[in-house]
């Protein structure tokens, strides 16, 4: 807070030294930007630092305690309001999206009217300005503050964040060169009238395209300092006979340079980001296609070999055994299963997943599915332990719920072979805190395998992801994604819980229909 106040005072004294209107309103009021950045970074509780800094500065240049207090209140309110608005709008202080830059510019334009109004009113009350100078002073104050927010705040916000990637020498050299070139161009522009001011945009565009928001904010400050230095020494395109016009021209120039350059940098960063996301998505899709192709080709190969063998056997006058036909049938079942899952995904992605409810008893459904899967459990050496509390009636899609439970069980068998798998079914009361919440059926499948690290569990519900690599476990990696959508289509939830080393638990919760459970506790 003390540091903030000290910075505020130093920046203000520099600003005032560069020229002030009525002794208080400056060309660039850098402290506005410092205060906004400090409150955004360190929290709004830092406001006393802003107040103290502003009070000291204004008292220093001759304001009475009352006037200095009024101005300080305006400056503090401006920063608090600006920070509150930007936090509410969820500003990302990296300023890498066009929306963030636009937000900052809009808030800079709006919040600074508070300081200008309260500040000029304080000056008027203290007799520092007269009625005729009121508009001009207000405008100079407001624009000076806006420029502080637009030039200084972004520099502090962007540079106070840790860089995403380690700075490479080549990039640092390019940045330095860009700053040097822009300063040279500025000297040329502000040293003689022969070169148009628009030439300055060349290095700024370079910075926006190549150096990101860090490079841009630095360049904007460099160009602004040169422009102020040139104009205040009476040279350059913004020097007019009328001082106020010179000031306004220079301020407009700096404001537009900052806004345009930051917007361009944000647009380019946004484009790069979108491209990276798209490339990542394509890579995910490619990996998935490789897995899907592997999963489909394996049973297809087995089936092709079996049919070839059958043809040869029949050709030799042999007979087809039941076992041989059974194996061929199993391959077509596998292919059908895989193709159906792929169709499920395309239905989900097209928003066309339909459920067909019918009255059924969830306990019976659980018994049916677990009975059917006993063979698979035996094959993987998993003991299947089922615990139910009694019939649970409701209206659900039988096939889809069977699909969900089979998927959860298959996953458990595959990922924790040789370990027991627990299936529990019961009715849960609605939460007491929410009397309108209905009772729910709770179906849990728990394995006792290696588990999944906490952060990775949710990834399993994302299509084209899997807990282990395809070649280790097999499958398309779509089961949980499809199951969650199926349960949600019933108005329920499917959640997972896991700690490495203790296995995974997946819980299906389905709302219970009061019609079936009026008499239940």
């Amino acid at each position, binding site marked *: 807070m003390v540091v903030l106040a000290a910075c505020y005072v130093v920046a203000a004294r520099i600003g005032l030294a560069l020229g002030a209107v009525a002794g208080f309103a400056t060309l660039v009021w850098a402290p506005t930007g410092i205060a906004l950045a400090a409150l955004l970074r360190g929290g709004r509780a830092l406001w006393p630092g802003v107040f103290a800094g502003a009070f000291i500065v204004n008292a220093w240049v001759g304001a009475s305690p009352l006037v200095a207090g009024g101005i300080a209140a305006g400056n503090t309110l401006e920063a608090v309001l600006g920070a509150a608005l930007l936090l509410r709008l969820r500003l990302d202080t990296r300023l890498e999206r066009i929306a963030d830059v636009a937000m900052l510019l809009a808030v800079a334009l709006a919040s600074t009217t508070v300081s200008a109004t309260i500040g000029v009113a304080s000056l008027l009350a203290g007799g520092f300005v007269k009625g005729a100078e009121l508009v001009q002073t207000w405008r100079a104050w407001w624009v000076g503050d806006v420029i502080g927010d637009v030039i200084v705040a972004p520099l502090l916000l962007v540079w106070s964040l840790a860089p995403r990637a380690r700075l490479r020498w080549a990039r640092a050299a390019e940045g330095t060169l860009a700053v040097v070139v822009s300063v040279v161009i500025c000297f040329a522009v502000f040293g003689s009238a022969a070169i148009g001011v628009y030439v300055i945009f060349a290095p700024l565009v370079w910075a926006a395209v190549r150096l990101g928001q860090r490079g841009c904010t630095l360049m904007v400050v460099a160009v602004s300092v040169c422009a102020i230095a040139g104009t205040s020494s009476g040279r350059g395109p913004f020097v007019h006979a009328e001082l106020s016009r010179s000031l306004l021209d220079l301020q407009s120039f700096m404001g537009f340079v900052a806004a345009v350059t930051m917007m361009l940098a944000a647009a380019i960063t946004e484009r790069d980001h979108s491209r990276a996301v798209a490339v990542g998505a394509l890579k995910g899709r490619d990996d998935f296609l*490789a897995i899907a*192709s*592997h*999963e489909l*080709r*394996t*049973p*297809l*190969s*087995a*089936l*092709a*070999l*079996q049919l*070839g*063998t059958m043809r*040869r*056997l029949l050709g030799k006058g042999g007979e087809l055994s039941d076992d041989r036909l059974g*194996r061929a049938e*199993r*391959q077509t079942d596998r292919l059908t299963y895989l193709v159906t899952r792929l169709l499920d995904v395309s239905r989900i992605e097209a928003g066309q997943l339909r459920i067909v409810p019918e009255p059924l008893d969830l306990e019976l459904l659980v018994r049916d599915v677990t009975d059917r899967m006993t063979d698979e459990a035996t094959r993987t050496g998993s003991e299947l332990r089922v615990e139910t509390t009694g019939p649970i009636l409701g209206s659900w899609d039988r096939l889809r719920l069977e699909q969900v439970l089979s998927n959860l069980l298959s996953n458990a068998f595959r990922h924790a072979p040789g370990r027991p798998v627990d299936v529990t079914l019961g009715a849960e009361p609605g939460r007491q805190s929410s009397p309108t919440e209905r009772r729910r059926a709770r179906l849990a499948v728990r394995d006792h395998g290696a588990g999944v690290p906490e952060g990775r569990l949710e990834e399993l519900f994302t299509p084209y992801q899997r807990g282990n690599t*395809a*070649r*280790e*476990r097999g499958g398309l990696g779509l089961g949980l994604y499809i199951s969650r959508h199926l349960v949600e289509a019933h108005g329920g939830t499917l959640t997972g819980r896991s700690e490495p080393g203790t296995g995974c638990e997946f819980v299906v919760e389905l709302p219970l229909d009061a019609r079936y459970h009026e008499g239940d506790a």
Partner: protein
Amino acid sequence: MLAIMRAMPSAPEAKELLLVVDDDDDFRSSLGEALELEGYLVAEACNGAQALEWLRENERPAAVLLDLWMPTMDGWQLRLALEERGYGDLAVLVMTAVRTQDPDLLRVGQVLEKPFTMPELVTALRRASSGVVRGRLSSTRRMSPT
């Protein structure tokens, strides 16, 4: 599960012995049967580790038919392990369900994409066991099926 010898030779002439390494039970047994009908003698292993164990205890096969994506020890790992254990000159026929551009893999020799027909397999086996194409894997192991 231990690697199993599928059938003893019944024909009078000496049959060529093949080792099929694939984790998919149905595919492995279907391939084994089809190869037997072609006159080969077939042993099976469901992963790389089991294949190495079988090789240690049995006579050298004419060729190894190898799947790439397997648990415990995959095809890439097995290929390296074979070289380390002095089986570098063993004919290997890679059967993959993933289109591969892996240069190390392609240098190994015969790569057969699943699904394949028996005539394609037999031709590839003849080429592999006659040593027409033979290469060595570099020590860099490729994980991704690109």
